[in-house]
């Protein structure tokens, strides 16, 4: 392969980043959003000539950039093309952005998770934009017979001597064959015109008039609807099906056994097929299924009892610096505390589902997936067809938060389409989603520590007792090997002289578990930042001072917290009946901290105001980073004081939003969010704001009431009373 072509097509300059791109400059054939066959005459092709795998320019001047990362609310539909547009030097407001199909051969990794899209695509897309801009400038220079050095660009035009200019559209035909030099000069950060501003997201216009296409909106000719009844308890099998009442319902055509693959486990299920969704749902409600061995006696109450007793186990050493044991033993006044966080459901507002059309050795899906490449591999395995025979269309995802990283409903729709020989739209009810998981793992964290005579932390041990997601999904060993992610972000915290972290495995099979927004940081940080607060109180130090002292060696975090201190008026005297709390965390390479102000109301407290600081490097789109922080606050508060997922005798007790409650508009405090300014490489903003929300709140509750909350969720209207 010629390196120059490689750079042009992939934007990748570093070694080891090869992701198998096609080198042919073929015409892009992706769709704008998604083909909805109820609507006709949709222009579904990026027109013009391709300068690389993400960029097409039409001689008319129309510039099309592919959004290759699934859009679930995080804003990559806009922010990813924005990076390329910046280096190409075109205003992203004037271009066409189209959702790519699932095609990792072409685009490289398309998965969205771990707040990684902007972080991972920053340099590749800058290189792609810059190399395309070079090609266009060179084409213009050749046309005018001048040196490329004497050209510049401005919003879609190459400018030559004495202001003469040609549009990118005029130049694309010549530009497409120009070789790209080995190294491409990128814009200096000070030259950015669009990055670092608050640009309007281009997906939002379609989301205010009902025209945005989500998974649930996809339709193809001849499709039928499926409503699903899953085996309660996850692991049982279908013993018998009584579908007499189901088949009486007009429109019901089939009752079919199916599965919901969960990697190491497979959940059995029965699907009712009908010509309308309503008929399928009524049919599912009328269905009587007997299940064999579906009671696995899993109960969350027992799980927490066991996890609490497991805090006494030695556990596996994860990381140690200094000599914890020796330092801890020195003190006459050790501090110990145990914290509990619940199992949770992701509950994106769009219920699980998928439209699949399997015909012979070919399959096409319209799938709300966070992992198109992985999804394609799983489909190929299950259907025993070649990956290249699979088409994955990715409509907008109606929320995800990790829930759409795995592919149960998609594979289920494929299974059903194959079995009945028609395109099938699977749509789960809210109850099927809430009750069947997968869930965020619950945890019990046990912390111990001591203070020096000067009131500094001398020793600290953080022991995490929690199930392993890798074990729950894939059967990965977590009983003799610490699952690294379960310890996040404990290694990226404070400088403590004698520190160690430990892990104790908890087996909850067959309960399915999954990565949930900010993953284990969402549970570990509650414990860590609560205990730090307890030590600050014990040391009679201001909790803000105490943390700043611990962060002295970490310039960026220290600066962030100092800024937050000022911005939140931390040092001002509190109004009568108010309390305040602070917490910070580092998650997926970004840092966020909150200061929460609360006031006393009756037997509880009211959240008055939350101040937030976020540092995720260069702000690609500042307004979107603020939006993500708002989302993290709302989801973090919901996790702190709404409902835990409760399982009894293998059956989930929560079923819908009446008993798995969401925060609502009347509960939102005043928010003040600001984004730190620096020139560090950008990282993702979708998750880092979440972990410190709960401890900032419970630290404030302690500050006001003296009531130390060590178990989530709690009842906000009762925490004002101690005991």
């Amino acid at each position, binding site marked *: 392969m010629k390196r120059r072509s490689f750079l042009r097509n992939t934007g990748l300059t570093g070694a080891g980043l090869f992701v198998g791109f096609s080198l042919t400059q073929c015409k892009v054939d992706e769709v704008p959003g998604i083909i909805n066959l109820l609507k006709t005459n949709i222009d579904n092709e990026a027109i013009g000539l391709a300068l690389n795998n993400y960029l097409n320019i039409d001689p008319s001047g129309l510039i099309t950039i592919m959004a290759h990362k699934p859009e679930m609310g995080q804003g990559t539909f806009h922010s990813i093309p924005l990076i390329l547009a910046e280096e190409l030097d075109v205003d992203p407001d004037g271009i066409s952005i189209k959702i790519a199909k699932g095609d990792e051969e072409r685009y490289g990794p398309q998965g969205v998770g771990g707040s990684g899209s902007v972080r991972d695509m920053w340099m590749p897309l800058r290189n792609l934009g810059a190399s395309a801009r070079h090609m266009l400038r060179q084409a213009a220079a050749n046309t005018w017979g001048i040196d490329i050095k004497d050209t510049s660009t401005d919003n879609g035009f190459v400018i030559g001597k004495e202001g003469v200019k040609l549009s990118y559209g005029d130049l694309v035909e010549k530009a497409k064959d120009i070789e790209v030099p080995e190294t491409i000069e990128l814009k200096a950060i000070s030259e950015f015109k669009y990055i670092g501003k608050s640009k309007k997201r281009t997906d939002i216009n379609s*989301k205010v008039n009902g025209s945005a296409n989500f998974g649930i909106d996809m339709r193809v000719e001849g499709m039928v609807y499926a409503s699903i009844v899953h085996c309660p308890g996850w692991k049982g099998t279908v013993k018998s099906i009584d579908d007499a009442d189901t088949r009486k319902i007009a429109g019901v055509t089939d009752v079919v056994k199916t599965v919901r693959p969960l990697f190491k486990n497979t959940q059995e299920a029965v699907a009712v097929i009908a010509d309308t969704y309503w008929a399928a749902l009524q049919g599912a409600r009328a269905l009587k299924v007997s299940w064999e061995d579906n009671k696995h006696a899993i109960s969350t109450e027992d799980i927490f009892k066991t996890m609490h007793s497991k805090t006494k186990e030695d556990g596996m050493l994860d990381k140690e610096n200094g000599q914890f044991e020796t330092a801890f033993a020195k003190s006459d006044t050790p501090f110990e505390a145990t914290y509990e966080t619940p199992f949770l459901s992701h509950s994106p507002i769009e219920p699980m589902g998928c439209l699949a059309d399997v015909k012979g050795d070919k399959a096409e899906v319209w799938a709300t997936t966070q992992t198109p490449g992985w999804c394609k591999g799983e489909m190929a395995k299950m259907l025993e067809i070649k990956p290249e025979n699979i088409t994955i269309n990715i409509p907008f995802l109606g929320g995800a938060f990790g829930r759409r990283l795995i592919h149960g409903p998609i594979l289920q729709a494929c299974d059903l389409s194959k079995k009945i020989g028609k395109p099938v739209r699977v749509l789960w009810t*809210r109850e099927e989603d809430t009750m069947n998981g997968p869930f965020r793992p619950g945890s019990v964290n046990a912390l111990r520590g001591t203070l020096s005579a000067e009131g500094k932390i001398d020793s600290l041990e953080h022991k995490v007792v929690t199930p392993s997601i890798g074990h729950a999904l894939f059967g990965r060993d977590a009983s003799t090997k610490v699952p690294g992610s379960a310890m996040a972000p404990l290694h990226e915290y404070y400088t403590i002289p004698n520190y160690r972290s430990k892990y104790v495995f908890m087996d909850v099979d067959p309960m399915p578990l999954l990565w949930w927004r900010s993953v284990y940081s969402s549970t570990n940080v509650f414990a860590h930042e609560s205990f730090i607060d307890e030590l600050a109180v014990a040391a009679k130090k201001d909790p803000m001072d105490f943390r700043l002292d611990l962060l002295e060696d970490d310039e960026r975090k220290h600066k962030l917290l100092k800024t937050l201190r000022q911005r939140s008026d931390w040092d001002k005297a509190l109004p009568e009946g108010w309390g305040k709390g602070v917490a910070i965390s580092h998650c997926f390479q970004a840092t966020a901290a909150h200061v929460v102000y609360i006031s006393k109301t009756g037997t509880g407290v009211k959240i008055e105001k939350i101040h937030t600081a976020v540092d995720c490097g260069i702000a690609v789109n500042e307004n979107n980073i603020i939006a993500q922080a708002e989302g993290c606050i709302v989801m973090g508060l919901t996790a702190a004081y709404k409902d835990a997922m409760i399982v009894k005798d293998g059956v989930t007790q929560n079923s819908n939003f009446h008993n798995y409650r969401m*925060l609502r508009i009347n509960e939102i405090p005043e928010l003040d969010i600001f984004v730190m300014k620096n020139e560090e490489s950008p990282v993702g903003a979708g998750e880092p704001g979440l972990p410190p929300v709960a401890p900032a709140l419970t630290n404030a509750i302690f500050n006001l009431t003296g009531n130390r909350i060590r178990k989530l969720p709690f009842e906000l209207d009762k925490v004002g009373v101690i005991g």
Partner: protein
Amino acid sequence: MGQIKLSINGKSYTIDADESMPLLWAVRDFVGLTGSKFGCGIAQCGACTMHMDGEPIRSCSVPLASAKGKKITTIEGIGTEDKLHAVQEAWIEEQVPQCGYCQSGQIMSAVALLKTHASPTDEQIDEAMQGNICRCGTYDRIRKAIKRAAVG
């Protein structure tokens, strides 16, 4: 099954469906207007909010029998191709949506609120918007957008 006449966004439709079918599914699957969304099926989340004779309703829980002869308005019916409704414009100005799935319902609740309260107080916004869940957490912007639309 029967022939059910519906008036949706000023147009008449005759649908051959069961009277117990919720209005939401008739509008989505028979009329083909997919802006109104299914979220919970039990009137808890508001993603399916439409107007029936001007009042906001949770269409997932309103059977067709109750919708007959009523004027139904959906998200597709509040603006025109050329001009968005003031609430929709405010939603864009404040950059409210994230995933966007619940926003048709949010906007329909907000439009109904502003019809009865031209300049709603925070309490009136809370009251009117409490039935609409946004899992992405766009509530702060929803409040700002309603106030912007009220002024405009």
